[in-house]
């Protein structure tokens, strides 16, 4: 039970960290200043969520391991774990692509997080519930912002519509995994599948306004939640962890 709770907390944290890191690639490269600021603000919110979650996971891990083991911290969890130990969904690690792909991924993920945190607010573990309650306020902004962009580009020019369609084709296959429970979710009695109908309803409504088609049933990629990742995660971790692995324990 305790191990599942740790794994689940790490899964939530890894989702937030990896997407935060991906979005931060836009820093200084956003299409206009205001949107550069928006996407980096979203990054910061996600990394903030990751910090709270890693801190909580570290607390649980240290309590379980006893005093003779070296203490786990939020930093060791972010910087010293390998690809196979990361439990983020494949969706979060996909390349940022163009602006269409970035905002569409954010929309898919924020919609998911919005319903997830709503449920998690009521969860029996009061720490996770508190983190969810706090993060939900931020996620509401992310969801509004990304919905507006999907509509603006989908129902925009020929080119923006074409790019949005390509983004849908590229990313749709990674959305199924969000709703497939990992073993640690099953053990905790958490069923992400219960949010799928709400998620689909929101996505369909925004797609309709954006003049985009919801794809037919296709084969869905899975694996991230149990540590089986696409080739992209290794590159992210290389960049993210480089300094700490080269100069262990360095601070500035």
């Amino acid at each position, binding site marked *: 039970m305790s191990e599942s709770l740790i794994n689940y907390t790490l899964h939530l944290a890894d989702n937030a960290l990896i997407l935060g890191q991906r979005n931060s690639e836009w820093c200084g490269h956003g299409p206009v200043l205001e949107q550069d*600021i*928006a996407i980096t603000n979203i990054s910061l*919110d996600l990394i*903030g969520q990751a910090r709270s979650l890693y801190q909580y996971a570290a607390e649980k891990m240290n309590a379980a391991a006893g005093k003779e083991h070296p203490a786990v911290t939020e930093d060791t969890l972010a910087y010293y774990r390998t690809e196979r130990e990361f439990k983020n969904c494949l969706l979060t690690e996909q390349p940022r692509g163009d602006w269409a792909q970035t905002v569409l991924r954010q929309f898919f993920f924020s919609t998911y997080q919005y319903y997830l945190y709503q449920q998690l607010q009521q969860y029996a573990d009061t720490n996770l519930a*508190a*983190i969810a309650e706090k993060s939900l306020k931020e996620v509401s*902004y992310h969801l*509004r912002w990304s919905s507006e962009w999907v509509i603006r580009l989908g129902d925009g020019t020929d080119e923006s519509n074409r790019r949005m369609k390509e983004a849908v084709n590229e990313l749709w296959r990674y959305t199924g995994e969000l709703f497939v429970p990992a073993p640690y979710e099953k053990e905790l009695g958490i069923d992400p599948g219960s949010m799928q109908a709400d998620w689909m309803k929101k996505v369909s409504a925004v797609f309709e306004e954006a003049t985009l088609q919801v794809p037919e049933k296709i084969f869905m990629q899975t694996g991230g939640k149990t540590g089986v990742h696409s080739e992209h995660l290794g590159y992210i971790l290389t960049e993210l962890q480089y300094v700490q692995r080269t100069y262990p324990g360095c601070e500035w």
Partner: protein
Amino acid sequence: MKAPAIDKKVLYAYLEEIKDPEIPVLSIIDLGIVRDVVMNEEGELDVTITATYTGCPAMDMIAAAIRVEMHTLGFKKVNIRYAISPAWTTEWMSKEGKRKLKEYGIAAPDKRFSIPADGVECPRCNSVNTRLISEFGSTACKALYQCNDCMEPFDYFKCH
């Protein structure tokens, strides 16, 4: 051992001197970040704070500033505790804090605009003929506006 008594009022007066590094007119008391200050049984000072935003980079600086201020007052051991529940809300910002914000040129949180939209009062000329430029501003807590009357761009401290 019974914990020695501390005068919270005096400590709060010192904490009032610590400003938000990103909005230096607001103290951490104005913001409502400080939830409690107590002396524990070991004679250590426990300061409980609640982060405004989860990713707010100012929080580490604020925690360090609290330590320094309290050490200076002679408290040898100072523990900063982070309370995540209840979540921080702009409702905790003091009236004085809202007044100082406006004077500084930032529109204070306004419940009518819990979702940012056109019409937040311009802190410079008080016009409500204003428009939302972006829900995300220079820091996580602010949105970007422009006044249609005096033409000045300004920040709005979002309801949270």
